[in-house]
Structure formats: C-alpha cells, structure tokens
C-alpha cells in the first residue's frame, strides 16, 4: 500500500506543479492546494502508516496496550492543514482582488513589473 501511496504523492506533486505552471491564477491556486495535499500525504507516509489503530487511548487504559499509529505526523499535518487553510484563503482573495484590478485571470498579464522601470 505504501508504494501506491508514494506514487499517489508523486502524482499530487506533479499535478500540483503542473497547475502552478499554467497561466490561469485559479489554476495556480488549485495547484497550491494539490501540492499542500501532496506534502501532507508525504509526511503521513514517511511517519509510517498503521491501519485501524488511532492514537487514542481507550477509556479504560492509561496508555496504549497495542500498536498504535504514530501521532506526531498527524499533529504536524494538522498544523500544516490549518496554516495552509489560512494561506489559501488569503490567496483566493488575492486572486479575486487581482481580477478586480486587472480584469484577467491570466498570469502573463502580471509580468510588467520585473522589467526595468
């Protein structure tokens, strides 16, 4: 299963990157979200996965009796999801503002800047 997930992670990275490389800002944001998912999956996988044993101690126990999933990657991913949410929200609004200012979704219209002014 890890192999499949590793491939899936690769696909997410690839498709996210591909989307970022498009000219549409909306696609850019979609790409960012895909990459965000991809990296979460990567952390999840590299922290090793365990089936059906959530890191929650049973009500009657004081610590785990059995194997359990590594909680650290989960906590990290949670944090990363929340942070990405903040960033994505802002990015989405940025797109909107940009569209309002420029009336285009085309990133290539945003290249005036780097030339010598």
């Amino acid at each position, binding site marked *: 299963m890890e192999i499949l997930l590793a491939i899936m992670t690769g696909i997410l990275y690839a498709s996210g990157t591909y989307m970022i490389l498009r000219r549409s800002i909306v696609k850019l944001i979609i790409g960012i979200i895909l990459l965000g998912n991809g990296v979460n999956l990567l952390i999840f996988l590299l922290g090793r996965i365990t089936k059906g044993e*959530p890191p*929650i101690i049973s*009500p009657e126990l004081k610590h785990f009796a059995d194997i359990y999933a590594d909680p650290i990657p989960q906590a990290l991913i*949670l944090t990363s999801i*929340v942070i990405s949410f*903040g960033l994505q*929200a802002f990015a989405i*609004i940025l797109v*909107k503002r940009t569209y309002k200012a420029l009336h285009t979704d085309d990133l290539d219209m945003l290249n005036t800047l780097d030339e010598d002014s």
Partner: protein
Amino acid sequence: MKTLILRTASDILLPVLLLFSVFILFRGHYLPGGGFVGGLIAAIAFVLHAFAYGLKNTRKIIKIHPGFLMPLGLLISFGSAIAPLVAEGLPIMTGLWVPGHFPVIGKIGSALFFDTGVYFVVFGVSLTIIFTISENA
C-alpha cells in the same frame, strides 16, 4: 438564496450545529475533535445561515462581532500559555491542572483553555473571512 425550505432548515440547524461544535471542542482531549474542528463547525453554522438569509440578517443575530472573537480567542490561548510563566515561573505552555474529573471534558487544565482559545480564533477567523468575501463578492 431566497428559499423558504433552506431557511427553515437553517433555523433548526444553527443552534444544533453550535451545540455540536462545543461538544466537539470539549471532547478533543479524549476523542477526535478539539478547538479547531469545533470552531470550524461553529463558523459553518453561521455560514449556512448566511447562505439562507443573506449576510445582513446573519450579522444581526450574532451578538459578538467575529472580528472581536479573534483577539479574544488569541488572548485566551496566550493567557493559558503564559499563565505558568506569570504564576509560577515555569516555562510557557506548562500545563496547570484543576483537581477533579468532569464528564466529557475530563480534567480541566490550561490545555482546555488553550483549546477554547483556538476554538474562538478559528470561529472568528472563518467568519471574518467568509463574511468579508460575501460582502464584497
């Protein structure tokens, strides 16, 4: 959206979802949940209301401005983070616990306050973002 059916539903769902969000918040230390998801659900409750009734009406029914919830929540979390520092000279984030055991919540300690702060922040942030967007959509 001007649809009667949705409005009726959102009337029912709003308090239920809020209740549920608090539930999710408090059980977080023992079971899946916590301040983050709780806060999101609370926000979603109002978002649903806003979809049904429009933003103006939703604003009317919220007593506390969401913009105020953000610093408030952060203050709560911040307070529980530095409480040990101020009170006992312990490092920040050190857990302080009230003796005793409570249903659902379990033990009451600074961690709970911390998570409550998270709840408010997430609630406030999500509402602020969504309200701002819909106002300027």
